[in-house]
């Protein structure tokens, strides 16, 4: 293992579309990614071979819900309740589209 310079793929956001994430689909964190909360960083992180993506609060809150059982509609409802909001559907789907584009999640 060497201290490598650039060459990693930047997080893809350009091609993310809400249509890619139907409300009835069920997201699940995909192999080889592992989601866990890191106390030292006070953040949720996605771990994968020799790497890490640090998520901000809302990103972590969404991925935490991606357990392979709840569908997108349910996740939106839970988060809206938790955050006292009624307009989060597009934000959640937009983030999940980015997550899908980066293969952090699968949809079934």
């Amino acid at each position: 293992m060497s201290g490598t310079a650039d060459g990693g793929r930047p997080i893809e956001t350009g091609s993310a579309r809400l249509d890619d994430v139907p409300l009835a689909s069920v997201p699940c964190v995909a192999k080889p990614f592992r989601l866990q909360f890191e106390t030292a960083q006070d953040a949720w992180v996605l771990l994968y071979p020799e790497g890490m993506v640090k998520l901000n609060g809302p990103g972590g809150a969404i991925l935490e819900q991606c357990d392979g059982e709840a569908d997108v509609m349910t996740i939106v409802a839970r988060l809206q309740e938790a955050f006292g909001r009624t307009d989060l559907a597009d934000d959640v789907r937009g983030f999940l589209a980015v997550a899908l584009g980066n293969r952090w999640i699968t949809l079934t």
Partner: protein
Amino acid sequence: MSRPTAAQGEADRLLGPLGERLPAPVKGKPGPPLWLLAELTYRCPLHCAFCFNPVDFATREQELSTESWLRVLREARALGSVQVGFSGGEPMLRDDLEVLVAEAHRLGYYTNLLTSGVGLTEERAEALQRAGLDHVQLSFQDSTREANDFLSHTRTFDLKQRVAALIKRHEWPMVLNCVIHRLNIDYIDKIIDMALELGAEYLELANTQFYSWAEVNRDQLMPTQAQVQRAEAVAAEYRERFADRIRIIFVVPDYHGTRPKKCMNGWGQVFLTVAPDGTAMPCHTARMLPGLAFPHVDTMSMADIWYASEGFNRYRGTDWMQGACVDCPEQANDLGGCRCQAFLLTGDPAATDPVCSKSSQRERVDAVVARAEAADPAQIAARPLVFRDPKASRQLSGRTQGSIPPTPSRPARLPESSP
């Protein structure tokens, strides 16, 4: 609820091939040592001529006990380490590897095994899976049997194919790492074909960095600019064509660039290596630097090692900088480049990395590259590589780093007074 993003659009790149980018280091207290590299042993069945283990490894045979490694894992995890790499040498030669992986897994690390594949039998693979191993990085020396055997000096190619299949059977993500150099760079398409055939998810084409054994063999391993450009183009073409199957990382060689790398993502910023004998360092080659003592994990806590020791603080941040680095607008991008490279090429570990085009000593790098361009292939072929083995190590360990083998045509290695 604000807009959800991955750290405001920033992902953290650790040291592996797969990440993206780390945030710029902040002044003051450094963040946690996110990456713990546990070099379990310098013993290795291979004899790679580009090995990054220290040239004098054979004089450092002492290895940490299992208990010490377990304590290192616990203390580093408490500090915030989240990735652990079990490396070497060949880590499979430690028969407590499964014990260490199991404890690392229990502690919440993402566990990576960096192996040549030698010793990774079906039985041990099953034990490692039970222990919670997350990932295997398999190193390959080349894709053709002849070249592979030549460059690793043992007959291991068939074995690596078997191990790759075993990794797939256990459903571990597989990263293939292939060190690229003058003697194999022209076969890069075959190397990528092989990675595709084996079903690797990631392929790191790591151009040789010239430290340790690769530095001893620099003349034979340094590619020409044309070779590098062609290889990069081939890698880019494959990357595009097979984007759905494999992620290809081509690590550009330092000497052929003009910007220094942010070595180890910055001294003491995210990376902590523990050498087989228990010496803790900001990178696995840092021990070559003169005038710098590194702490031992049996006599200092990991917290003090990371935050308080002189070894980790000397080149941390930007205060130590001199020469072209002072007031350079790019200093936060590269943190002055690589300290070992600066030392090897200029004799001064605090110099600006001479790879930087702003360095007053860039001519030293240019001279090395020019030598590669002008080299007679027949002469290169005629000069034997120095393979990494204990005998060669003992012979070389008396030398001063960066001064041998002595060849009349290596003016770039002799320190001069600064202008």
